[in-house]
């Protein structure tokens, strides 16, 4: 590619999460999703997003560790061992967040200029918040998923980790392309309708850029799990934005409470399906001992000893847990009570967002193409009957905390019940269910100066000193989300 030498990313090092295919180009890097099932797997083709980076002059710095297949909130569930945050508290390593923890640490420690991660329920935003950097999850369908290993394909989104918002925007503009290889990539016809497509052509858009923004503050996000340092950082950010002339509007997103449960039904269900291909036949390391004849015969009769042994040995505990959860949710006996109900909640979460945002959802104004069944009126929960948000109270953006707490120590996480770690995703999951753009930006926690890469010398990283604040916008409002991210970033 002739553009390489003078591309906008010329010479910039970019790290790639290990569940994004880097292809056969030099250097040939394995793509294993941190799983033993794919040990040494080198994809024969590169992901479209990786190709776009190299075509624009970027250098692939390497692959970063993560939770196996993106399943985790602390990057501890990896075949290569845990990711460690650079920050420590009382001598104990902190969680880097997950699942794109390796990418976040690589950016925070300046081993690369920026990194790609994937975000299914918060996997870019959470590690960004824990590592004190920026994490951006664009609208679903803008960045190609071709070459990105599936976890929950209806929510999997390629995300960007960077030191500041302008860098994230630079990468986003390069990667935001229609890709005909990816059937979920938004086609040009839909892109033309998005406000972020070309601000110049939409007069109301430039008007919105000039005026003060209406910021929605979801009262439903004041969960009891919300810790006070995070809570204070959030409130202080909101106050400063108000000082700058932006308007704060309290909004209700009543489905937030069910969103996490719905996510942990839907994501495992899709995972159980997407990971069925890892049977050891076509890729991944074969078993140490070849299958015996009896095993092969048993496989034939449906007892599947070969596959189950391979999968049993290859997958980690968390992946197995989610596959089992998902397989159960999809089983004939549980389908109606779990998968279908969760899809209904997903639709309610989308409706919640559409109700509070001033701009209409461009996916719903056209013929709805969502595969999730619409709840019948009889099944609508009571809160659906609440009066619609008046036009006056509609907002341009939402601002919430990214995670309920500051990063816990790895030791603390290890003592947690696996289900308890799921609550980390409570604030990030709703935007994932609705496919909305959102960004996590670090803001200082009260009374503590933000330490960082420039901090005191050899390994002298202290506590993180900042919390992630999340900006969520209407589908396709990626540019406005980035702009507000930049404003929040400038508050420090």
């Amino acid at each position, binding site marked *: 590619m002739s553009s390489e030498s003078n591309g906008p990313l010329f010479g910039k090092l970019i790290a790639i999460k290990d569940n*994004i*295919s880097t292809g056969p180009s030099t250097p040939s890097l394995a*793509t294993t*999703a941190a799983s033993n099932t*794919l040990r040494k*797997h080198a*994809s*024969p*083709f590169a*992901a479209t997003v990786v190709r776009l980076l190299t075509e624009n002059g970027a250098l692939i710095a390497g692959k970063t560790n993560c939770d196996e297949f993106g399943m985790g909130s602390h990057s501890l569930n990896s075949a290569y061992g845990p990711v460690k945050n650079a920050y420590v508290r009382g001598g104990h390593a902190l969680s880097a967040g997950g699942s794109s923890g390796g990418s976040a640490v690589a950016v925070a420690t300046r081993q690369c200029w920026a990194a790609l991660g994937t975000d299914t329920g918060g996997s870019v935003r959470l590690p960004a918040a824990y590592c004190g950097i920026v994490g951006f999850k664009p609208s679903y369908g803008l960045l190609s*998923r*071709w*070459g*990105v*290993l*599936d976890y929950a*394909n*209806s929510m999997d989104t390629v995300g960007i980790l960077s030191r500041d918002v302008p860098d994230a925007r630079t990468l986003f503009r390069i990667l935001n392309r229609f890709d*005909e*290889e*990816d*059937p*979920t990539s938004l086609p040009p016809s839909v892109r033309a309708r998005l406000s972020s497509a070309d601000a110049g052509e939409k007069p109301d858009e430039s008007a919105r850029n000039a005026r003060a923004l209406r910021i929605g503050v979801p009262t439903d996000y004041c969960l009891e799990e919300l810790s006070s340092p995070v809570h204070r950082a959030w409130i202080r950010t909101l106050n400063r934005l108000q000082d700058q002339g932006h308007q704060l509007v309290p909004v209700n997103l009543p489905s937030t409470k069910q969103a996490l449960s719905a996510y942990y039904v839907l994501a495992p*269900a*899709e995972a*159980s*399906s997407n*990971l*069925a*291909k890892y*049977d050891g*036949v*076509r*890729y991944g390391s074969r078993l140490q001992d*070849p*299958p*015996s*004849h009896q095993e*092969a015969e048993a*496989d034939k009769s*449906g007892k*599947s000893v070969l*596959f189950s042994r391979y999968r049993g040995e290859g997958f980690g505990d968390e992946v197995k847990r989610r596959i089992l959860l998902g*397989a159960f949710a*999809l*089983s*004939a006996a549980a*389908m109606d009570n779990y*998968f279908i109900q969760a899809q209904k909640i997903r639709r309610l979460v989308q409706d919640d967002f559409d109700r509070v945002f001033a701009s209409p959802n461009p996916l719903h104004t056209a013929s709805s*193409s969502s*595969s999730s069944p619409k709840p019948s009126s009889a099944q609508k929960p009571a809160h659906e009957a609440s009066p619609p948000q008046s036009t006056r109270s509609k907002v341009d953006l939402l601002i919430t905390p990214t995670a309920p707490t500051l990063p816990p120590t790895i030791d603390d996480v290890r003592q947690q019940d696996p289900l308890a770690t799921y609550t980390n995703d409570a604030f990030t999951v709703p935007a994932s269910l609705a496919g909305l753009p959102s960004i996590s930006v670090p803001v200082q926690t009260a009374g503590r100066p933000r330490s960082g890469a420039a901090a005191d010398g050899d390994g002298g990283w202290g506590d993180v000193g900042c919390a992630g604040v999340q900006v969520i916008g209407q589908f396709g409002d990626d540019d406005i989300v980035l702009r507000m991210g930049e404003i929040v970033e400038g508050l420090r």
Partner: protein
Amino acid sequence: MHSSTLRTAPIHLTRTLQHPSFTTARSLRPCIVAKWLQSRRLTTASPRTQEVIPLRKHLKDEAKRKKAEVKRDGNVLSTKQTSDSRLDKWELTVGIEIHAELNTACKLFSSAPAEVSVGDDGGSANSRVAAFDAALPGTQPQFQIATLLPALRAAIALECEVQRKSGWDRKHYFHWDQPNGYQITQYYRPFAKDGSLTLGAFDGVPAEDLNGAESITIGIKQIQMEQDTAKTMNVGSSTYHVDLNRAGMPLIEVITLPHIHSPQTAAAVVRKIQAVLKGVDACVTGMELGGLRADVNVSVRQRGTSGTGSSYSGVSGLGQRTEIKNLSSFKAVEDAIVAERDRQISVLEAGGVIEGETRGWTLGATETTRLRGKEGEVDYRYMPDADLPPLVIGSDLVKHLKTTMPMLPDAVEQDLEEWHGLSRKDAKTLNEQDNGDRVEFFERTASFLLAEVGTFKSEVSTGKERRKTGKLVGNWVLHELGGLLATHQRSWDDVRVTADELKDILVCLHKNQITARAAKQILAELVQRQPAPKGPYWPSMDTRPSVEQLIDAGNLRLRPLSEHEYEKLAKQIMDASPEMVKAVREKGQKGKVMWFVGQMVRQGEEGTVEPEKAKVVIERLMDG
């Protein structure tokens, strides 16, 4: 990479014709994947082409085997009687699911070619595999819109309502023939619903099923599109070879309602659906070539009762059903249903209960065998495929296809019967042979012949002439030409005789210029000769003689004898065989006249004696 670029060039070309949007990068992918699979040592030697047994031969062999069995057991009559009497009490109900491979250029969700293209070594295993077909991590399906056309033709031909919006679902099960661990199908929302199929006696429906009516109608519940699986071959004790060439090929599944009440009708339904699918060019290979597979659901109930109260697809009051999977010939469909019906009746009469289970059948067996029971049923965990947008089919497309549909087999046969004067049986035989090539040959020959010999005096007389020549041509195309091909063990593809040549022969015959015997001789000669080389620079006369030339060379032209010459020849023969004359004259054995006619044809010079005239002369002389 260069050699592989060359290798896929033909694929690329053919694909480009189908899809203008097709890019070079995509056509390369099958190669990348093939190499990839090779590196995984997944490539096998090209599988030996499965030995194809022609249906007729198969049926003959089966009949022979059965006959031998009967001879050995010696009590077929009593068995038949008992089973017949049981059938007075028990009623059979059958529903069928038919899987047929669509006639398309590419796979359902990838650009990999569906068929080996000319000049490509794509016949080898794992050579027609795109990244998605091998389920490489990070790949997504890409619906190939061209696969929709044959599927829609099938739906229209089976009188289904094409759904404006349908969807794709994943059906999960682990097997090495299923690279993704699931099959993409249309479980929740199929693209076509509520069709029907009408069958009559000529389709093989027994009189009891027709019950006095001219035809019966079987409901089609739905048609869905789905992916085929890979081929696996067991080589050695614990080694299996996987060939992904078939993985992801587009199939349709046609599901009938449980409206079928006899094994013969079930086989007729499968045969007719195959004929319809072939007729509208939805499918290419038929059942005997593995392009069509059927699963049957079988239940019995006592007549006049509502069975165990089971209901399927909205038909209620049925007995508990079992499913017999993977039947790959019409014969297997019929025999498997007979066996399963008899088994179920025996179980019920002995006071037992039918279990809902899946059973298997092997050709030539007398009983179905249990594959798995209800507790062993696979939970397929159907879920919508979030990667694929819903399939939206515009009514204008359906309308367009309806107006450009090829004629359905029933219509073709009706046309042959009413327009060309063939019997329904001949019409059906003609239509079902050689993918419609033989009907086309017939129609060409018939129209050429009519153009030359027709008088076109009036509409009525033209119709009469057309039916007369039609019958003549039908007879020659089916029986004379068919017989010659059978004698030489050649297929229709190698028929060599052109419609023009057959027309020339039949014109001479029609005009009494040659005898039927001579006509047959010429046809036999032409069937054995090398076909004329194609192209304008090769005058066919050099290598292949015309009908006229053959007539002249064989001195076959009819030179009618005078009345006197006929009498002379007749007298000669009568004088030589006085006892035969006596038999006719004194004993009144009129049949012996034909012996004399035969003698006259034989002893007369080739092409001079017409049997009809000879008969008149002999009869006159005998009376005289």
